[in-house]
């Protein structure tokens, strides 16, 4: 029987007031005067009235709330909108309500019983139906949620009760054979659109090329049978660009080893050899995260992932899953590292942009507005990080119109793990034949099916809605506690990996290589609801799951721990040494593939690129510019100005490790680095930083990648790190990767990685790529459009410092401190924020001279270590103008800077101020330490340019002098997201 519990606030509801304020701002023409909200729990279970009431009491805070067993309507309203989830979408609130009720009635719900949450918003004011429809559109995302609109008259009849239960149509509950003896064009269609179901519809993309399809056909010819759908889906997932990184792995032109082995791994191997005994790498590229030494007893790990395609469809779900997903890359490192920090990055279109795009030509599937994408991803990382109890000390927002189709959503996690417990190395793992295959955590539904192959395709019509998963941080937190606090150190399992892309097929398939084979019985896998086909169970990307190898003798002890922590653990099979991956469903074999073919059978693609001339050259036309105003304007740009509204809603202090903050100085300027103290009884610190310059790709991808590394290294140095204890991670996000021209650009960027990293001696320890950040759809006039995200490399740096008391921040500290600029300022404004502001194309892109910069960075690192420096900031986006302003706003102090004679070739005032030449750092110096600093800077280009002052900020370049108050700079710096 379906009943409803409705809970409303009795003491003034800040959330309702917030709805009112934000809806009024968005819909000024709608006569909205008030909003009231009611939280509803639709209970689909056999409960007595008494039980229902006792449940309702537990869902109500008696001091501030009241409940009723139907939704109470307020006195006056014109429309009511109910927002709830679509069937099958993760409903975390409903889940908690169910547990609460079960606890109240002392019994568990049956398999087909459940609780579903929804929110009723009562809208006051004389709205019409159109207003109501527009508000409903704003309030929900139709891919995951349903909105029902009731007029006041409708409401009088009462609100209908229905439970959004998953009702799967009669699926084939067995594996189907797939006939590959078909003409090439049908093979291409199967690869592109998926296996044909009985009703003629396609199951969704396999992203397998004709070549790959033919290889598979050939393999099964030899086996003298047809492949099952399970096998074909499994091969598609395992061979996907997402999992095998085919573009980075396969030969490209003369690089037979592929660019990953040649340039990325190649750089690390060379650096480690050069470092010899000083090598701090412990586990690189082979595990779910990379790990370096923190001290004799502990390692720190780092991994950064992207979740771009899902974030385009459901930004909240996409971003929360990015975070909880990469947290599992931490839990899945070695035998399980504890996540101690998250980092984020959002590459989005201007949130004020109002252009509309559609996935289909009929214009029925609209892309979410760019504002809602940013709001959604910000909220997703908020929920993912905060609810997991993992601090978020660092992140960024980068804006470009090319991210309108697919945003780039980066999520990274730093982990802490002891090297050894009871003589056992925790950073190594190996499943053994005979170990149970254990699935841990959440249950399996249709979530994220085809996630691996989907993200290997451009976002277009037919993109599967089931590609959207919503993470459940609490289920994962329970799992994390159980593993890291207890099971790991008791040595109860031999291997662990996360269920990410490809679900069980990915995790079990990967671990089977450690043992030498596996056998899985799919009917043991716990499901969210009945009716899943075997291939769906095997491929589902339902979240919060890890796969473990548990020796039989440890099973009872392991299971007991998981029970105590409220974590579901299920044996779903056994690792073997048969060399095969065998999957059964209710006794029938649905997959029987050799591991060799599964993992190594993929046809290698000989990739060819076409040389592109770098587009960097002198800008043709420079308009007349009011430089004084331009300084303020650059600060108002969303890629330069404050995003304090994000940092301020992400907990950065949980776990008690915070040393430098995401907002620095009195003026709370966004940090470009973060310092943590992971161990309570040690002074050692971990320095984090990020580098990204996607805009430079419009001119030269080599320069883009080089600048990304340079920026990450520079920002880490400014926080107190040094090059000798600094590692980096690469995240490539490319677009149009099938085009030979883009492959050339990719090759250049990868080569830059090798060149710059080896010169800095900063090894890559982990990386990931996402190669299809394309949107193919239609604009408002119905014209076909292709939006390709700018080729983007995010470089994440992680370093270790001996004493956090030496950590450095970017804000000016005291009046009278001398200002120094280290490095050369050249006329390098191509693709700069200044040119973007002016709409100028072309120009010289910043060029990295790593050998020169290395000297400067080493001198600054030494100066910080010796205590000569009061503030340090890397000069990056927005040039010296932005760096000076940020340090001033940070300290709420002024300055007097004469830039007339700074080193470098920039001569024009705007080049001096806005050039984004790499390798530069702006320092303020502790009084009396100037001479010692200058001694350290011997051989490095630098200039003493002035000093920190009180409230006035004065910049002189040649004959020009610009003056501002620090409050004017502060206002500009904070203006873009002021209302957020």
């Amino acid at each position, binding site marked *: 029987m379906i009943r409803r519990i409705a809970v409303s606030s009795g003491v003034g509801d800040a959330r309702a007031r917030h709805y009112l304020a934000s809806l009024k701002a968005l819909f000024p023409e709608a006569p909205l005067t008030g909003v009231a909200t009611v939280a509803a729990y639709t209970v689909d279970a056999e409960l007595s009235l008494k039980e229902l009431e006792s449940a309702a009491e537990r869902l109500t805070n008696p001091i501030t709330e009241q409940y009723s067993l139907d939704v109470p309507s307020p006195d006056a309203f014109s429309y009511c909108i109910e927002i709830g989830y679509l069937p099958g979408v993760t409903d975390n609130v409903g889940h908690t309500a169910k547990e*609460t009720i079960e606890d109240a009635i002392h019994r568990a719900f049956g398999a087909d019983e459940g609780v579903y949450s929804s929110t009723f918003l009562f809208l006051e004011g004389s709205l019409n139906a159109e207003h109501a429809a527009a508000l409903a559109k704003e309030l929900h995302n139709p891919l995951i949620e349903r909105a029902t609109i009731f007029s006041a008259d409708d409401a009088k009849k009462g609100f209908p009760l229905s439970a959004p239960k998953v009702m799967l149509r009669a699926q084939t509950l067995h594996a189907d054979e797939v006939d590959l003896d078909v003409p090439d064009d049908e093979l291409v269609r199967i690869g592109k659109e998926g296996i044909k179901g009985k009703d003629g519809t396609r199951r969704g993309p396999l992203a397998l090329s004709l070549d790959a399809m033919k290889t598979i056909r050939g393999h099964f010819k030899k086996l003298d049978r047809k492949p099952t759908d399970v096998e074909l889906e499994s091969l598609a997932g395992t061979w996907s660009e997402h999992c095998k990184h085919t573009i980075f792995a396969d030969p490209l032109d003369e690089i037979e080893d592929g660019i990953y082995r040649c340039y990325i791994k190649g750089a690390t191997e060379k650096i480690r050899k050069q470092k010899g005994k000083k090598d701090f790498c412990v586990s690189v590229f082979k595990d779910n995260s990379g790990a370096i030494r923190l001290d004799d007893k502990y390692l720190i790990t780092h991994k950064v992932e992207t979740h771009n395609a899902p974030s385009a469809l459901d930004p909240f779900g996409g971003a929360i899953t990015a975070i909880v997903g990469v947290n599992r890359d931490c839990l899945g490192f070695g035998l399980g590292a504890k996540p101690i920090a998250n980092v984020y990055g959002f590459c989005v279109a201007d949130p004020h942009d109002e252009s509309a795009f559609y996935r289909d030509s009929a214009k029925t599937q609209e892309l979410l507005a760019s504002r809602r994408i940013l709001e959604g991803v910000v909220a997703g990382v908020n929920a993912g990080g905060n609810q997991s109890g993992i601090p978020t000390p660092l992140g960024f927002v980068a804006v470009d119109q090319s991210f309108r189709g697919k945003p780039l959503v980066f999520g990274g996690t730093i982990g802490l793990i002891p090297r050894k417990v009871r003589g056992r190395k925790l950073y190594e793992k190996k499943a053994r034949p005979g170990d149970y295959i254990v699935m841990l955590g959440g249950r399996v539904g249709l979530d994220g099916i085809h996630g691996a192959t989907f993200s290997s395709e451009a976002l277009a019509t037919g993109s599967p809605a089931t590609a959207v998963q919503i993470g459940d941080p609490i289920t994962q937190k329970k799992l994390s506690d159980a593993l890291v606090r207890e099971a790991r150190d008791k040595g109860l399992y031999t291997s662990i990996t996360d269920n990410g892309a490809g679900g069980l097929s990915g995790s079990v398939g990967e671990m089977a290589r450690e043992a030498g084979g596996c056998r899985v019985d799919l009917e043991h896998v716990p499901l969210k609801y009945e009716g899943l086909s075997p291939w769906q169970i095997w491929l589902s990307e339902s979240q919060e799951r890890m796969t473990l190898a548990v020796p039989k003798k440890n099973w009872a002890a392991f299971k007991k721990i998981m029970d105590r922590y409220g974590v579901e653990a299920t044996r779903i099979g056994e690792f073997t040494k048969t060399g095969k991956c065998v999957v059964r469903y209710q006794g029938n074999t649905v997959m029987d593939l050799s591991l060799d073919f599964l993992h190594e059978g993929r046809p290698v693609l000989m990739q060819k690129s076409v040389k592109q001339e770098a587009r960097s050259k002198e800008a043709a036309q420079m308009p007349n510019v009011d430089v004084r105003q331009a300084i303020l304007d650059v600060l108002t740009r969303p890629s330069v100005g404050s995003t304090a509204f994000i940092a301020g809603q992400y907990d950065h202090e949980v776990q008690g490790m915070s040393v430098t903050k995401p907002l620095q100085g009195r003026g709370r300027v966004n940090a470009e680095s973060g310092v943590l103290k992971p161990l309570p009884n040690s002074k050692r610190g971990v320095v984090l930083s990020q580098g990204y310059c996607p805009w430079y790709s419009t001119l030269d991808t080599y320069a883009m990648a080089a600048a990304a590394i340079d920026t990450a290294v520079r920002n880490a140095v400014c926080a107190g790190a040094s090059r000798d204890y600094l590692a980096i991670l690469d995240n490539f996000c490319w677009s149009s990767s099938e085009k030979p021209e883009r492959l050339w650009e990719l090759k250049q960027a990868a080569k830059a990685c090798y060149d710059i990293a080896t010169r800095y001696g900063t090894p890559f320890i982990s990386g990931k790529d996402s190669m299809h950040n394309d949107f193919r759809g239609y604009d408002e006039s119905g014209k076909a459009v292709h939006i390709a995200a700018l080729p983007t490399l995010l470089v994440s740096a992680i370093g270790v410092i001996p004493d956090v008391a030496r950590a450095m921040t970017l804000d000016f500290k005291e009046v009278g401190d001398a200002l120094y600029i280290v490095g050369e300022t050249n006329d390098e404004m191509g693709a700069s924020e200044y040119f973007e502001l002016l709409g100028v194309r072309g120009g010289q892109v910043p060029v990295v001279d790593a050998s020169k910069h290395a000297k400067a960075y080493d001198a600054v690192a030494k100066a910080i270590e010796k205590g000569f420096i009061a503030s340090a900031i890397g000069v990056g986006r927005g040039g010296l103008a932005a760096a000076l302003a940020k340090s001033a706003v940070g300290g709420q102090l002024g300055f007097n800077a004469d830039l007339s004679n700074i080193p470098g070739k920039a001569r024009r005032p705007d080049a001096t101020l806005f050039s984004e030449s790499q390798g530069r750092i702006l320092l303020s110096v502790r009084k009396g330490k100037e001479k010692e600093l200058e001694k350290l800077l011997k051989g490095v280009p630098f200039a003493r340019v002035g000093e920190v002052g009180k409230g006035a900020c004065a910049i002189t370049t040649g004959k020009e002098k610009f003056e501002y108050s620090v409050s004017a700079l502060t206002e500009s710096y904070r203006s873009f997201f002021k209302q957020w």
Partner: protein
Amino acid sequence: MNRSKKQEKRSSKRAKPHVIILSGYGLNTEDETKAAFESVGATADIVHINDLIARPTLLNKANILVVGGGFAYGDHTGAGKAYGNRLKAHLGKDISKFLERDTLMLGICNGFQILTSAGFLPGALIANNVPRYSARWVDLKVKGESPWLRGINTMSVPIAHGEGKYYAPPEVLETLEKENAIALQYIDGEVSQHFGLPPNPNGSLKNIAGVTSHGGRVLGLMPHPERAVFFTQLPHWTLLREEYVRSGKKFPQEGPGLQLFRNAVQYFV
């Protein structure tokens, strides 16, 4: 060596007070809370609520019970509600018995929400006036009497919450005032002034940041003292460092939140 350090040393010869810190279902500040207690001379165990339900006698050996910060049950259905229900239903009697002895109990942030929800502390915590999760530092004035707060007049510590607005009906507020049970209030102090932030971060009635019951032995507060135990956790410490160094002073090691834990330990020695 200051007086309190001497006392810590002396007390180490006696039995150390024992702390139980509850965990499970999304609580997440147990490790740093444990480290804070241990650094001032207590022994501490992190105990999953299910383990305590299975063996409530564990409380017999404890002097201090802590429900720390976190996101129990994701704050779904209301912060602290689900965990508070569970605590009350399965351990309510045992905790009441525990409090009959001369013991201390502490609820930090989500733990405060849980203890109000379970009825061990008066009032309720509701959505911030700006209904968004907020992470920043605040300044507190000690108002009421509590062993936890002895010798502290003001302290600056961080908050991180979305539902931290203290609410109680007028008559309850009056009683709290009368019984000296308003423990901590947000004030316009060093950190708020430094960053130009509003002193009351969430709209709490009467600027209440923490309240007590059981004559001050049970304290609940929204701010996080366990995140303010080192000098280098302060939000403006790199500026303070300059001031210390330039005036020829060594800068301190300790943060303002540690005294609260030290007070609790010294209550038993």
